[in-house]
Each structure stands twice: as structure tokens, then as C-alpha cells.
């Protein structure tokens, strides 16, 4: 995907505290990030980490306690009109249950001050053309989600913010959503900011990710860098204690059964071998160990979620 460094979305020390200052709860703390034009940016975090609060601040639903959200270079609080260039899906799509899917989009189009000319095309695109006349209260979770995507794209926005866009979708729906997100960025040059707990999906569609835990950004990088940083070597050596002692002084080492996981890159494999041999340990197997995003995510957030 072609990424333009010009930031479409910038968060600068964005914070949100609920309650009184003394005993308030800080839901989001000094979150800073920047998303470039044409980028697909993933926002990850365990439940209660502050993802939804951050997204709600981005679309003007929640006022930040401190910090700044800038969209297309404009301070959101000073110029909320900039949200006309933003489409969003939060909470799996919120609609008037007594109106049909089409009528809901008509209401939204009128609220946005736009014509209804794109509605049929979008209903068709999200696969709801045949159900457009039905009242939304009869829609399944997946149908609401798809209507939510149509609503997010109604104004042909430059920035699309999707909060858990694949919730409630079946396997085919997830595939379609993945393709849609890709095509938004690749074919139509849109910027996509999405949160999801389905890390496999995020890994497949995002250029960069930020991981938020307990209201703070704990890691931000490209997917490739994130996985590379967490590359390791799986070692089977004996005696294990001797091997561990020889390596732990140089690299982080974790035990996994009888094996050792050494947080060292492939280029450092010869040095690992030399140290093991030097310490008198017998090496039986050395293989590269690459974590997937889910494992990296858990390693970053698990200790904190355990505390919670």
C-alpha cells in the first residue's frame, strides 16, 4: 500500500479522565500517534484498554480531558466540521430500529447534508440490497455491521474509522471485510484506522499498529518490525540450566518446557552457538522462532491484563 507521510490523523498526548480530578479514573493517558494518508492503521488492545474511548474522542463523541486530536491538520475541537471527511463505524453500527436499512442511510445522508445518490450503490456493495426495505430491528448482528460499513462510507470519506469492523461477521463476511478494507486503501486511497481484537485480520490488512494497554500506548510500529523485534531462536541444549546461564547474560531467555526461547535475531545464531559450546552445553537443535501478532500482543499486554 502506498503511504503518504502527510498525517491525516494525529493524536498528541490525548487523555481522558472520568470523574473528579482527585479520584478520577484515567481511561486514556497521553496517547500520541500519527497516521499517514493512504495508510491502514491498526489500534489494538485488550478489553478496557482505552481503544473505544480513544475512537470516540476521534469522532467527537467524547471530549478529551487533555491533549489534542488533529484531523487533516485541523484541531477537532476548534474545527469539528473536519469530521465531514470522516466516516465511522462504532459499536457495530447503531441505527433506528423502527426504520429500514435504506431509510436509516437516508436519515444519515440528510444529517450530513448530502444527497441519497450513493445509497443504492453502497447497499449493493455491502450485500444488503435485498434487505434494504426491512426494518433494522429484524437485522442480524452481521447485517447491522454491514449497514454500519455502508453508513461509514456514505459520505465518501477520506478517513474511515472502524471500531471492531468484523464483529458478528461469519468467515465469508470477514473475508469480504478484509478485501473491502484493502481496496479502500489500495484502490481508493482512503486512510483506514481500525481497532480489532482479531489479530490475524489486523496482521493481514494493516501497515502499522499501535498497542494500547491500560490507557497507554505500549508499542507502535509496522507489523514487520513488531514481529521482527520479537524474533527468537528456539534451542534444545543440555544441561538446560547451563545453557540458560550462558545465554541469559546476553539476551532475554524464556523457558518453554525443555527448550529455551532466546530473544536473539538470526544473525546472532553463531554467537549463541559459540556461547553454548564455551559453557560446555550440548546443542541438539537450534531453530528460528517467529511469533505471530497474537503472541506478540499477548506478550506485551498479558502481564498487565493479569494484574487487572
Amino acid at each position, binding site marked *: 500500500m502506498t503511504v503518504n507521510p502527510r498525517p491525516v490523523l494525529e493524536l498528541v498526548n490525548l487523555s481522558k479522565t472520568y470523574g473528579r480530578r482527585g479520584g478520577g479514573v484515567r481511561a486514556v493517558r497521553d496517547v500520541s500517534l500519527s497516521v499517514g494518508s493512504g495508510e491502514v492503521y491498526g489500534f489494538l488492545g485488550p478489553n478496557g484498554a482505552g481503544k473505544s474511548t480513544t475512537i470516540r474522542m476521534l*469522532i467527537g463523541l467524547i471530549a478529551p480531558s487533555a491533549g489534542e486530536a488533529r484531523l487533516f491538520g485541523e484541531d477537532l475541537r476548534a474545527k469539528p466540521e473536519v*469530521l465531514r471527511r470522516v466516516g465511522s463505524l462504532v459499536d457495530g453500527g447503531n*441505527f433506528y430500529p423502527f*426504520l429500514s436499512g435504506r431509510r436509516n442511510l437516508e*436519515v*444519515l445522508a*440528510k444529517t*450530513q*447534508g448530502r444527497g441519497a445518490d450513493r445509497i443504492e450503490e453502497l447497499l449493493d456493495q455491502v450485500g444488503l440490497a435485498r434487505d434494504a426495505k426491512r426494518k433494522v430491528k429484524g437485522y442480524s448482528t452481521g447485517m447491522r455491521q454491514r449497514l454500519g460499513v455502508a453508513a461509514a462510507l456514505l459520505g465518501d470519506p477520506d478517513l474511515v474509522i472502524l471500531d471492531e469492523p468484523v464483529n458478528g461477521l461469519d468467515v465469508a463476511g470477514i473475508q469480504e471485510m478484509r478485501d473491502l478494507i484493502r481496496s479502500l486503501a489500495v484502490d481508493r486511497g482512503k486512510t483506514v484506522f481500525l481497532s480489532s481484537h482479531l489479530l490475524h485480520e489486523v496482521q493481514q490488512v494493516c501497515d502499522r499498529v499501535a498497542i494500547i494497554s491500560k490507557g497507554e500506548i505500549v508499542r507502535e510500529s509496522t507489523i514487520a518490525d513488531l514481529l521482527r523485534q520479537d524474533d527468537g531462536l528456539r534451542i534444545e541444549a543440555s544441561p538446560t540450566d547451563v545453557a540458560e546461564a550462558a545465554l541469559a547474560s546476553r539476551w532475554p531467555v524464556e523457558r518453554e518446557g525443555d527448550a529455551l526461547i532466546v530473544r536473539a535475531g538470526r544473525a546472532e545464531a553463531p554467537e549463541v552457538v559459540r556461547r553454548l559450546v564455551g559453557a560446555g552445553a550440548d546443542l541438539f537443535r537450534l531453530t528460528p522462532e517467529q511469533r505471530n501478532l497474537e503472541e506478540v500482543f499477548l506478550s506485551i499486554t498479558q502481564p498487565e491484563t493479569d494484574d487487572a
Partner: protein
Amino acid sequence: MLEALSAEALKMRTHKATWFLVWMFPIALTIIMLIAIVSGGAGAAPPGQTAADWIENTSIIWFVPNNAVGRYLISAFVAVMFAGEYGWNTWKLIVPHRRRTSLIGAKYALTIILFSISFVLTAAITTGLTFLNDVVTDSPLPAGVGAATLLDAHSKAALAALAPVLIAIGYASLAAVLSRSTIAALVIAIVATSVEQLIFNFGPQLSVHFASVVWPLYHALPGHHIANLAEWIREGAALKREFPGGHVVSIAWTTSAAVLIAWIAALWGGTLAAFKRQDIN
């Protein structure tokens, strides 16, 4: 603003609350009057009926906002209009796309437009059916009933109904935004209206025991001022209420108008201010 109003109208025109709480007035009155005419229950006009009596019969709808039950019904619609968005969770759909002032303004405007249409329609239907009843029962139209006198009387009645409608809207909208619940908003609006009516209707009796509380409340709450303004509009004189000890409450229409404007500004302004500051989680 017009776009927000158009969206609001598109949304609410098919909602049950609009049918039950707005169009109910012309529909119910038409059905009741038609049944009365067809069954002969309405009967012929009483002998000696004056033009003023005849016109007052046709303007019954304008008295609805002046009584508590009428205001409960208006409050119920406003509660659905404003608090419904919390229940449906749809503020999240529309708030990012338009200024909050405009969204709340559209709701106020649509409420006033819908009730205006409903009341004017009801008044027109009532007038037409009253005339039809006279034709069916072969009753003569009292001398002095004409388009000009009808319009004058209905305009004055409508003007007298304006303040209680706006106050009812204010109670319910503020309660809706603060409570974020349709039921809670309705209950709060009903309680506020009932307390106001209680103090107005039973102020002199209550002040025998609680004068220090009732006397200032009687002057501060909208109840007396609504009735006083209506009296000034209809009769051209102040409403007089006698309290124990010979105290007579008689207030200039300008004072009552100022108090009511302050109430409406506080309730509507409070709604807007609360909504503008509100986090939508």
C-alpha cells in the same frame, strides 16, 4: 439546520410516538365528534348560544396544553424525541456529522412544527364538524360567528397555549438529556408539571401551613404566570388569586412574560448546554 430538520422529520414521521402523541389529537377528536354527530349525542345547539360560546367549543384543542394531562402527552413525545437517541444508541450515528446545537435545534423545531400542525388541524376539524353538527341538527349559527372572529379567537387561544407547550418541551428535553432515558425523562417531566400545577391550583390552601415555602414557589414557578398570561390574552386583565391574610396575587403581563421567558431560556438553554458538554459513551 434545515438538513438536520429534514433528517429529523424523515426519522420521526413513521414513529409510533408521532402517531400516538401528535396525530392522536386530530384523529381522536374527529372520531369522537363524528360518533357524536352520527349518533345524535352531540344534540342541537342550546338555545341562546352566543358566538363566543360557539367559538369556544371549536377551540377546545388550544386548552389542552393548559392542563396537566395535555402537558404530560406533550412531554411524552419530547421524551421519545430526545431520549430515544440514547435508547437506540443513535447519537453515535449522527453526532459526528453535525454540530450538537443544530441537532438539538432540529428536535425543538420539529416538535413545535408537528404540534402546531396537529393543533391547527384539530382546530380546523373541530370547527368544521361543529358547523356540520349545526347543519345536521338544523341549529342556527349564532350571530357574529365569522372567519374574522374565528381567526381572532383561535389566534388568542393559540397564543395562550404557546407558553405551556414550550415549558412542557423544556422540562422533558432537559430531563431527557440529563437522565438519558425515555421513561426517566417522562417521569421527571410529569413530576415537574404536577408539582407546578399543585402549587398553582392549591397554593392558597397550602400556604396556610407552609406559607414560607409556597408563597415564593407560587411566584417563581410557571403555573400562575401561564394562567395569568392566558387571562391577559383572553380577558385583557390580570388573573387574581386570593391568599390567606387577604393577600391578592395580581401580576402584570410583562412580569409573567419575563418569568416564562426566563424559564424557557433556562430549560432549553440547560438542555443545549448539557448536551454540548455530554460524553456519548
